[in-house]
């Protein structure tokens, strides 16, 4: 097979595996800080114990998630060079500083304080431990900031000049805060919020279904529902703005997303279709008239450019068309489920024993809904930039590796096997951790606490 295609598949496989973990940890870091603060502020001993249990379980989830994010991230930092050696040679002057700032300001920060956050509790004071938790969360967010600055720049390049085929930085503010960056960053942070919220909801619901839940699981479930119910509509708004921005700067991406071949006024929204690059038309269309124009132009008769305006350089239509629908569909489902869940929960007087089991099963079934939406969204973004690696300026094929395709194929097989194995193990361990009652705290009852809360504090159980 073609070396460029193999390099692409390999990079895509790695980036797909990698993004699963930051998409949880970016938001989970802040949720941990929230649990910790709730634990410290609670005056009722039982509540204090509940929040502590929540903190401890989810700290373990964070540690596991973070470790997988780190190892796949290290792989990615190498694959920039092994798979796209020409990329750095051409745009290294711009991408280089952004990547090094990520390592210097974010990567080290999270890695440096993770040890203190995870294992340092009995060795440092409460304030320092809280500080470490905050810095890990901040580091994770900053990491997303720099990576999305670079990714957005590749989508909507700004602030550069080209001298002898080499890119040079002209204005760093314009490079970092390029036209699509604010939208992309907000969109990603909200995607992580939803992914994390549904993980909280799903695993707590699973614990309730399995009968292994403590009062702690109820608190986590409620936190997750509120978090999701707020993040889902915010994401819809952010997504809309992001779409308008894409229409302005990358109209070919929108044309592929909407499956529009000819430039149209009053373009319909296609609910179903099978776009065909060969015939340059769609099969089996199911459409809502004028809706695409209304959404994108905020005018039912607005004009949308078709793919035929970009004959030699538009992204492949089919994967984009369907990734987008999977993303939006999952997003709408998350919105509905979180709202219905929260409403039902409120109506039951915040009493979880009244939550119907089918609803709990639905929650558990959507544990990884955020992953589906995030990956689909990422594909829309990344495949949508093709055939360019830097929109309109450098083609992906120009910068690909000169490594023999047999080597790429061999390592691709090894990587994919490893990733699938680790993913199965990850989900399996999450399930196991959520079902296994915590040994050390399980024995502590609320009577113990009411009698002698200080004893547990001095033993470090609460500290």
């Amino acid at each position, binding site marked *: 097979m073609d070396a460029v295609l193999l390099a692409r598949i390999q990079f895509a496989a790695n980036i797909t595996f990698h993004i699963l973990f930051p998409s949880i940890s970016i938001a989970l870091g802040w949720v941990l800080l929230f649990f910790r603060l709730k634990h410290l502020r609670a005056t009722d001993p039982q509540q204090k114990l509940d929040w502590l249990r929540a903190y401890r379980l989810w700290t373990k989830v964070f540690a596991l998630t973070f470790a997988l994010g780190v190892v796949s991230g290290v792989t990615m930092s190498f694959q920039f060079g092994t798979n796209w050696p020409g990329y750095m040679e051409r745009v290294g002057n711009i991408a280089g*500083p952004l990547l090094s700032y990520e390592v210097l300001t974010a990567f080290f920060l999270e890695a440096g304080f993770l040890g*203190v956050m995870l294992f340092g509790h009995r060795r440092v004071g409460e304030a320092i431990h809280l500080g470490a938790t905050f810095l890990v969360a901040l580091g994770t967010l900053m990491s997303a900031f720099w990576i999305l600055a670079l990714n957005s720049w590749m989508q909507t390049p700004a602030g550069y000049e080209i001298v002898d085929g080499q890119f040079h930085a002209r204005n760093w503010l314009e490079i970092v805060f390029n036209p699509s960056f604010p939208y992309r960053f907000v969109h990603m942070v909200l995607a992580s919020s939803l992914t994390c919220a549904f993980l909280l909801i799903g695993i707590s619901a699973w614990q309730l279904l399995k009968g292994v839940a403590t009062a702690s699981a109820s608190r986590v479930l409620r936190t997750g529902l509120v978090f999701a119910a707020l993040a889902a509509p915010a994401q819809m708004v952010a997504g809309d703005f992001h779409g308008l921005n894409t229409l302005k700067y990358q109209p070919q991406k929108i044309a592929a997303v909407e499956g529009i071949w000819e430039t149209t006024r009053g373009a319909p929204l296609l609910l179903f279709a099978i776009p065909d690059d060969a015939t340059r038309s769609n099969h089996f269309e199911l459409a809502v008239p004028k809706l695409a124009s209304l959404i994108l132009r905020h005018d039912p008769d607005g004009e949308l450019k078709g793919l035929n305006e970009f004959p030699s350089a538009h992204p492949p239509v089919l994967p984009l068309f369907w990734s987008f629908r999977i993303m939006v569909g999952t997003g709408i489902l998350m919105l509905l489920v979180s709202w219905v869940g929260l409403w039902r929960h409120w109506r039951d007087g915040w009493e979880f024993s009244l939550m119907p089991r089918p609803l709990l099963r639905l929650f558990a079934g959507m544990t990884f809904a955020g992953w589906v939406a995030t990956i689909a969204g990422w594909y829309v973004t990344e495949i949508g930039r093709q055939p360019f690696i830097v929109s309109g300026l450098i083609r992906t094929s120009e910068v690909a590796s000169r490594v023999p395709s047999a080597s790429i194929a*061999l390592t691709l097989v090894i990587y994919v096997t490893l990733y699938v194995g680790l993913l199965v193990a990850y989900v399996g361990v999450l399930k196991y951790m959520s079902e296994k009652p915590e040994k050390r705290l399980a024995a502590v009852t609320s009577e113990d606490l009411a009698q002698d809360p200080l004893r547990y504090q001095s033993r470090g159980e609460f500290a």
Partner: protein
Amino acid sequence: MMSMSFDELLPLIFIGLMGVSLLVYVVSDGYDLGVGMLMHRATPDERDTMVASIGPFWDANETWLVLGVGLLLVAFPKAHGLVLSELYLPTALMLVGLILRGAAFDFRVKAKADRKAMWDRMFIAGSMLASVCQGWMLGRYISGFGEGWNYPIFAGAIAIALPMAYALLGATWLVMKTHGELQEKAIEWSKIAFAPMVLGLILISMATPWISETVRIRWFTLPAMIAVASIPITSSVALLTVRLLLGAPAVRGALCWLPFALLVLVFLLSFLGLSYSIYPYVVIDRLTVWQAASSPESLRVILIGVCVTLPVIIAYTGFSYRVFRGKTIELDYA
């Protein structure tokens, strides 16, 4: 040399930074990879203590690799393409090792108890694979990716010697961080790893000038020869002291940190020797730092970040080592 402008100096600053990152990586991930490899000689309980001794650090240790390779990527893009294309397969295998190891590290305590032994095996295998690949990569790199029958033998020798050096470093780390029975074992492991590591170091020191003309001229020309001779002499003294200490009772008590510290010194000296051999090339005899460097303006932008963040990074790394100083105790989340 005297009239070098700041822009001409920048690539040198960056090759220095990159070298230091990789040195810190080799020492810090070296001891934790070493601990990982030694786990196959330990009982399940000892394995828990061994993992606990590196638990708070391994993540930050690995970050130095990302910084080192990152700097190669951003400061010397041409060299990066060349080096990583040549080392494509060993790099991929090293990454597989690091992935297995990093994942197994966390899975082993969170998965079902009956899976723990499996994750331990993954952890040990991952540590070995990563170390062997790093040795091979170092060997290929030092010999400038030469073609011929002698080069693979040379790289193969380093692929064995470097894991031995890591194992020794890991064993002396355990001498420092543990006590009682495990410490006794660690002293024994150190003694076992000592001879092959020293032999490897001697072979490499002899083979490098044999393989590379450039290196030979640089080391065996007077008067520089007299000055640089201090590197092997000091290394020999440090290594001899390590061996003597391992036989002495004091290593169980007050001086438990000294073998590790002396080995770090040996690593530092080897690094200086290697830098002296290679300078001013990024890839020996093929690319100098100036030929491979990015534009001065982007290097300047990165340098600002480095000057601001590196002291902070060093400060909080020091803080973390202070928090977890002393003998290892059981790791316990939060």
